[in-house]
């Protein structure tokens, strides 16, 4: 039996190492994709799109390994949360990688368009900021640091602000006829991809919090809903009125 537990923990360690590696691939993808975009590097764009396959393969492998552990070891408590978190994280990271592939494809669509220095600077900054968020989220994961995990939501505000500036800069650039409508739309989408990567990092942070503490932000809403239903029931009883149907939490969630 002890032998089996040991191999179980080894499996958990392997899953964690693979998640860290997947995260490293994603955080490398971000500056790489940005360079492709800013230097009009079509060869680099193709290479990045192909490199995403490696990311997909790794995330698939992690997921399979997680299911394998779930099925054969039936982990409990924190071990179970670690596995469930790993499955979630794989999805978040894989999606972030896809977003950088979208940036590379966007770079192909605006090939030949000259961007003014302000737009280029903002793209550089959004790229740095989103890569920083991903790295922080992975730091939180490897250190099992729930406080850092939760903080990423607030740290992400900087990226959201940059995204706002960036959209404004696109409008200005379009207004002065530096870039056409089509390029403007593509650029706005590209900005959105970076911003979404930040959101995925926030999700990772929250999942890390769940892994460590077993708590998710959504639980506040769920508890509020439950309290509201309870309050409505007791209030009606107090005034001597019993409603025929008391809304269940599922009903309310649907509405």
């Amino acid at each position, binding site marked *: 039996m002890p032998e089996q537990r040991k191999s179980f923990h080894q499996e958990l360690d392997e899953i964690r190492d693979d998640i860290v590696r997947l995260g490293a691939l994603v955080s490398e993808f971000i500056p790489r994709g940005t360079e492709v975009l800013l*230097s009009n590097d079509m060869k680099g764009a193709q290479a990045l799109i192909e490199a995403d396959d490696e990311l997909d393969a790794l995330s698939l492998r992690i997921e399979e390994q997680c299911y394998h552990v779930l099925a054969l070891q039936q982990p409990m408590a924190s071990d179970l949360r670690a596995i469930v978190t790993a499955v979630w994280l794989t999805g978040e990271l894989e999606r972030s990688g896809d977003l950088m592939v979208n940036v590379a494809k966007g770079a192909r669509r605006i090939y030949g368009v000259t961007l003014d220095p302000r737009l280029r600077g903002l793209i550089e900054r959004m790229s740095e900021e989103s890569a920083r968020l991903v790295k922080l989220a992975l730091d939180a994961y490897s250190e099992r640091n729930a406080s850092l995990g939760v903080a990423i939501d607030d740290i992400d505000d900087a990226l959201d602000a940059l995204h706002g500036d960036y959209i404004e800069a696109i409008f200005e650039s379009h207004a002065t006829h530096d870039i056409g409508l089509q390029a403007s739309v593509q650029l706005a989408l590209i900005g959105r991809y970076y911003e979404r990567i930040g959101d995925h990092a926030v999700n990772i942070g929250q999942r890390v919090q769940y892994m460590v503490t077993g708590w998710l932000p959504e639980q506040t809403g769920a508890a509020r809903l439950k309290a509201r239903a309870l309050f409505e029931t007791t209030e009606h009883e107090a005034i001597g009125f019993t409603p025929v149907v008391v809304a269940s939490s599922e009903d309310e969630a649907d509405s």
Partner: protein
Amino acid sequence: MTPVLPVAIVVAVVTVVVTAVVTRYFSDRRFSVVSKWLGQRLEVDLPPPASGPEAAIAVIDRRLRAIEGGADLARAQVVRLQGALDGLDQAVLVIDGEGPVIDRNRAAEPFIEARHADALVGAAVAELVDAALQSGGATRTLELFGPPRRTVVVSTAPMPTEGGQVVVAVVEDITELRHLESVRTDFVANVSHELRTPVGAMSLLAETLQDAEDPEVVARLTGRIQAEAMRVSATIEDLLELSRLEGEASTEVATIFAADLITEAVDRIRPAADLAQCQLVIDGGPEGLALEGDHRQLLSALTNLVDNAVKYSDPGQSVEVVASASPGMVVLSVTDHGIGIPARDIDRVFERFYRVDQARSRTTGGTGLGLSIVRNVVTNHDGRVEIDSRLGEGSTFRLFFPQVRRVEDGSRGTQQ
């Protein structure tokens, strides 16, 4: 009187004697077995049991001391070898065929339980271990985007040992090497371009001039020839200046007030700044803030920076030239709000003839050597230079020089 007592006494005495003899016999026998075994284990000839345990103990003690001495030597050798490995820039890892890292040097530490880009290096090492065991060695080059951007070569080779097959992995960071290679090739290409273009232009213009009769055309062509000649002469002038700076450290050392230096540099550029409708804002910093060095070199470095700042600013923008003190250092900073430098070019702008934007540099002029001159001046003065730049937002160049003791002379170091 029955003879019970004497008989009992005799029996007791006999028993004691027999027991003593038997015990002695077995104890001797045991001693001889143990000493034979010890002799074999310690590879030493022990004296015969008859010479007593003291003699045997003395021999065993000598032998143990020799063994301890040997172990100390081996330990010292391990420490020495580990020290030598730790001194290497390359990361060296000795990995068991089964997976775990058995030995590693200091440079390899970042790759153990690594995160981010280092985790990818660690993963590459693990993958190449299998390759080394199967095919006897493997190499992979990793381009890491960081930041910082790095190029890393991972190579593995199997190493047979007594306990089975292990693999040696070496991780080498070749970023600097790659950088130097590109500097060299770019320099050769750029220097020939910078010198050949104006000469080629002059020769063409002169050829056209030969057949030109219209005085207006002649005037325009000679003007162009003059401009090209000036350009090539400026390039040669800067190249000479650069080789002078590289060849020697500052010779004429004097105490220079930061405020004076700033005023002088800004005065030189003011006409160009007025022409570009660029506002120059200066601040000489705390009174008496001074540095030591070659006045001509320092002025040339600061002038180059202010000149660049003005060139890359749009009309109406301001350029700030500020002196300040940081612990033990004088900081001269030049800030513009112009086009800025792309992040990937920041490390390269100090290279000779390096241009961020070839097209724009043609319109702004300049030899492409200004920042190389700045860097050489700073190095000659034991200082350093930092760039803080954002595309579309502007750049700040900071020169750090060792501060000389504050000179109590308010009249010279006044605020500008």
